[in-house]
């Protein structure tokens, strides 16, 4: 039915998200950099000065390796969830395929992600870790993570049209996830019997692989990579299927 230019539509929607978010912000895109830096400083202070050992020089970098994936996941999954309702003014007016709204929302968060990854890589290089060949794995693991988030965005946004509480469920889940992802503690602190469960959590798996690649200079563990691959594709499949099943009722419930 709709035969338009998908790339043009999605890039216009991404531009819309980006502009409408930053138009009235004095610091603009700087917020993308400030947020992780502030969190990193606070967590470093608490866990080296109050709880941990003050000598841990790597702690800020390790925290940043955790914060960047977590921030992306939390913000992209939440804005994906609300993407349909936020674009209700368009859904009510234009018969454009509904899938483009969660996709554009996740992609516009990828712009912030690029800025934050830039910050992280700059910090890694500045603090003397240097570039290594395993950095080539970064696009692969991030592509899988984005696929995972896209799947969740499809699922959550469609359900959120019918049950508006979904948004708050996602918010609460993200708050809990902050503690369950090894952001401010290292993976080795997790008791052995829980480690397998952690590896099936794509956010935790990503944090783990980021540290392996950036701090240890090693390729990611293949078992973890396989789990991430599996979970990402399955989530995307389920999300897309549910979205497809529910999309015919969007007009009535929005």
């Amino acid at each position, binding site marked *: *039915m*709709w*035969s*338009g*230019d998908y790339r*043009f*539509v999605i890039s*216009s*929607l991404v*531009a*819309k998200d980006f*502009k*409408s978010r930053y*138009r*009235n912000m004095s610091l603009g895109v700087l917020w993308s950099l400030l947020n992780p830096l502030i969190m990193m400083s606070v967590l470093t202070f608490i866990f080296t000065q109050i709880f941990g050992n003050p000598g841990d020089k790597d702690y800020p970098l390790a925290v940043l390796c955790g914060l960047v994936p977590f921030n992306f996941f939390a913000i992209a999954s939440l804005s994906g969830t609300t993407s349909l309702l936020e674009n209700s*003014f*368009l*859904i*009510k*007016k*234009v*018969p*454009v395929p509904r899938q483009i709204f969660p996709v554009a929302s996740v992609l516009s968060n990828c712009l912030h992600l690029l800025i934050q990854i830039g910050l992280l890589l700059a910090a890694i290089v500045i603090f003397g870790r240097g570039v290594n060949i395993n950095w080539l794995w970064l696009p692969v693991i991030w592509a899988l993570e984005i696929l995972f988030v896209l799947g969740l965005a499809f699922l959550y946004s469609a359900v959120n*049209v*019918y*049950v*508006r*509480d979904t948004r708050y469920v996602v918010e609460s889940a993200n708050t809990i996830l902050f503690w369950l992802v090894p952001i401010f503690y290292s993976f080795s602190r997790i008791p052995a019997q829980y480690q397998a469960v952690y590896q099936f959590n794509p956010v935790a798996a990503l944090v783990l692989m980021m540290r392996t690649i950036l701090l240890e200079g090693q390729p990611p563990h293949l078992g973890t990579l396989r789990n991430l691959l599996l979970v990402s594709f399955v989530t995307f499949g389920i999300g897309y299927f549910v979205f497809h099943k529910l999309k*015919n009722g969007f*007009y*009535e*419930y929005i």
Partner: protein
Amino acid sequence: MAPLVEFQNVSKWFPHTTGRALLRTHITRWLGASRKDNFVALKHISFRLDPGESLAVIGSNGAGKSTLLSLAAGLAVPNEGTIAVNGRVAALLELGSGFHPDLTGAENLILNAALLGLSRKKTMDLSEKIVEFSGIGDFINEPLRTYSSGMVMRLAFSISINTDPDIMMLDEVLAVGDSSFQTKCHDALADFQRAGKSLLFVSHAPAQVREMCEKAIWLDHGELMMEGDAEAVLDAYSGGMALKQQAGNQAI
């Protein structure tokens, strides 16, 4: 020739609970699944619109006119029956159609054109023409929330007509602009029709219907009362209204 728009036995109903997006509502609907508490907006509607023809939809408030347009525009999906639309549709259904208040007129223009299915190149080629037609001037670089409702309509109409659709769907939007812009709209729509394009048009103004459409359908409480020549349908409709009023007066 294949029809531009064809409705075959189309019915559309809404659950009465619409607007309450609660888990409980959905569960009880799944479990109970009674169809009785549905509000039927359209009942077994069939009609066709051929290329080069224009069709008016008339009827009193709540007759199902806007529902019919939203189905024809591909926004909602019918519960029964089939709808075929061949050609590119530009629908101007209500005011403010698809504009973001924080974006400027120019940014909204690009977003809208993209959503209507235009390529980036075509949009850039057309944007000057659209802005000029709208007569908005320098306001095009101001955010939409600073626009008056007349200016919003000007921009929306300019985008729709200049993207060169095969069918224009209009839902009583022309009444908003000032008289000079209304004249401009009518001229543009007349040119559009002369180019062999079609209008699907909801209106309460008989003069407008006579002027712009050769065919009309009359809806009443979701039922198709009459389909045919615009003049005949208008006469029947005003006759029906007069009868209803008489009956009402007698009842009092």
